[in-house]
């Protein structure tokens, strides 16, 4: 049980760390990439994915200002 908890904690720290927002942003990018790939719409990823990344960074600014 201790091993499972430690294992879970490791992955939580690895993926989430000190910012849930950035982790969610990463998941949104992944999901958006998958949806775009399924839809096979040329050029959509070139616009949407960078915008999601920049939006995630923008949303995380207040936490960055507050510090850890």
């Amino acid at each position, binding site marked *: 049980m201790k091993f499972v908890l430690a294992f879970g904690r490791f992955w939580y720290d690895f993926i989430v760390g000190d910012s849930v927002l950035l982790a969610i942003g990463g998941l949104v990018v*992944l999901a958006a*990439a998958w949806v775009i790939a399924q839809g096979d719409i040329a050029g959509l990823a*070139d616009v949407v994915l960078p915008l999601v990344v*920049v939006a995630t960074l*923008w949303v995380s600014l*207040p936490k960055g200002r507050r510090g850890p």
Partner: protein
Amino acid sequence: MGDPPGEEEPGGGGGEIGRVLARNAEEVAELENEPVIEVVGFDWTGFVVSFKGVFLEGLEVAFIVITFAANSDASVGLAASGAVAALVVVAVTGAIVHRPLTRVPENAIKYTVGVVLTAFGTFWTAEGAGVEWQLKEAMIIVLALGYWGASAAMVAYLKRRPRAVKRPLEPATT
């Protein structure tokens, strides 16, 4: 783009960054006042820290080489040759420019690495999901430039809060 969510108006009580900078300045001052520890003999701490960093990066390179080779017509041997060539180039470059590199501000290096890694990360995440970039690999450069521009704009946005940064500092409560 409007203010980020949860953000105060410029100069209107944004003293958090001032306090963070103050804590940072205090810590830097404390470290500068600490006596220099003379390392006698082999520096094991430095060796272990360096080894862990190099080992981790080397492991990443191995994974990248295998992944590239597995996803292309090239053999693992050819991909490994490329990795070895990169190792030689990096080692020689490091040996030549390690002194000038120590003078580059740490934050500038971190910022540059962050922008580059984010560009590569976006590119390969999408590639992994099956996305076809219109500009192919050249999109990495476009992404890096775009992220650099956007983040520079955000840094400028944060900097135009003089009251928040220059407000008198509160004494430490510890």
